[in-house]
């Protein structure tokens, strides 16, 4: 079982979370060229190693998190709130 240290709830089993997906994707502006959308929606680096990804603490605080995890060893390297404003507040406090 992967254990994810949620910044709100503490360390929990990954089965409390749902996996979002590749967290390195940023969606382009609505009127951006089609090619940019194509890339954001369909193309993936599919890293073997450290990757940024989103997880939702759906059985806990229900917050979305940005997690750095190794896709080969499953080791978690960092966790922060996905919402940049919340992340900033939390990180200032600690």
């Amino acid at each position, binding site marked *: *079982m*992967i254990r994810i240290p949620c910044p709100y709830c503490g360390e929990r089993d*990954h*089965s409390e979370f*749902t*996996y979002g*997906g*590749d967290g390195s994707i940023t969606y382009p502006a609505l009127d951006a060229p089609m090619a940019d959308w*194509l*890339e954001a*929606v*369909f*193309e*993936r*680096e*599919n890293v*073997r190693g450290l*990757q940024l*990804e989103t997880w939702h603490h759906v059985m806990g605080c229900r917050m979305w998190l940005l997690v750095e*995890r190794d*896709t*080969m*060893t*499953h080791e978690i390297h960092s966790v922060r709130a996905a919402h940049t404003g919340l992340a900033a507040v939390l990180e200032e406090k600690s």
Partner: protein
Amino acid sequence: MTRFSAWSVFRNGLTGQKDWDRQWRDAQPEKQYDIVIVGGGIHGLATAYYLAKNHGLKNIAVLEKGWIGGGNAGRNTTIVRSNYFRPGNREFYEHSLKLWENLSHDLNYNVMFSQRGHVSLLHSPGAVDAAARGYNTLRLTGSDAEIWQLDQLKQEIPHLNYSANARFPILAAAVQRRAGTARHDAVVWGYARAADSHGVDIIQNCEVSAVLLDQGQITALETSRGRIKAGKVGFSVAGNTSRLWDMAGLGTLPIESHKLQAFVTEPLKPILDHVVVFGVGGTHFYMSQSDKGGLVFGGDLDWYKSYAQRGNLPIAQDVAECAISILPCLGRVRLLRHWSGVCDMSMDGAHFICKTPLDNLYLNAGWNYGGFKAGPGAGWYFADLIANDRPHDVVADHDLKRFERGVNLDERGAGPDPKLHG
């Protein structure tokens, strides 16, 4: 190589089975090949076989980093069926199923293909209607399909959980009788042996670590057994496709690598004659009984991206719950083993058999967790692509640019999220 026949089995019985030949050569790498296929799973081996057999090509090698069949070919739950509906997928899987039906004869190797029928349980009137629509499509396009109402289902498989109090009571089943299972190792060995007899070099312990390029062409592959020059190259490496793609400097792909587990119980007396599938409320569970008596279970992906060939425990629990909910009599049966394989999950759940931005590189990938049944067909069409340098009509939409054209071959209608396709 000795052909297997009733006579050869009898004769070797008389001499204590000591006189069998090696089934294929332990080929050493040459410096150069006209065609190099990377990946010694079913797909790579089948491709090499059909390149030689259907197209008369020579000087072909299959490079495998470990041992052949050590990847998903040897890890899957061996379900073979053709009940796919999207144009392109429909013809492709039906062709593959037809190849399966004659494969043991064609390869002169018993792949133990058992057409025991594939029974998908249906739990709501809506599901029955949807299945009827799908199965009409199958019948109208030259395949077989049946809907079994409850009375027939009870006759065929009497010991399922038919309780009216079940969380999801069973209403009917969608059935493909020509579907079934096969012996995974035998398919790998059969293709290897047949390809080898056509002169294909099957080179194990040969990991490709770099791709050498010159002006939009691959010139050679750097491997753990030295540099190998190549005329044409085919990638057929399932869950490792993005790794090879990266070595070729080609950037991103509409693929993510996820792992899927399989489970086998202790051996039992014969208890289940069919492949039974239970999928409701997003779950996905399938089981069959192997010839050794073990019940083989499969479920969903582990839900997060992974290159690790080991599975997690929450899925073991989900799968066990599904098994008990449809066959409660398994309550005391113990699981013997579970394992996992890394699947090349694509953005729409369909495959790629296509040309690439490099002139002499061809791609066979995006098999999700359905590539075992596809093995013969994929080898057939991939060989056709490599030999003729153009895709066959059946795989014309199975290219990397289909999303750009707005084409999604999405059987489940799940959208562009690889983990949701099965």
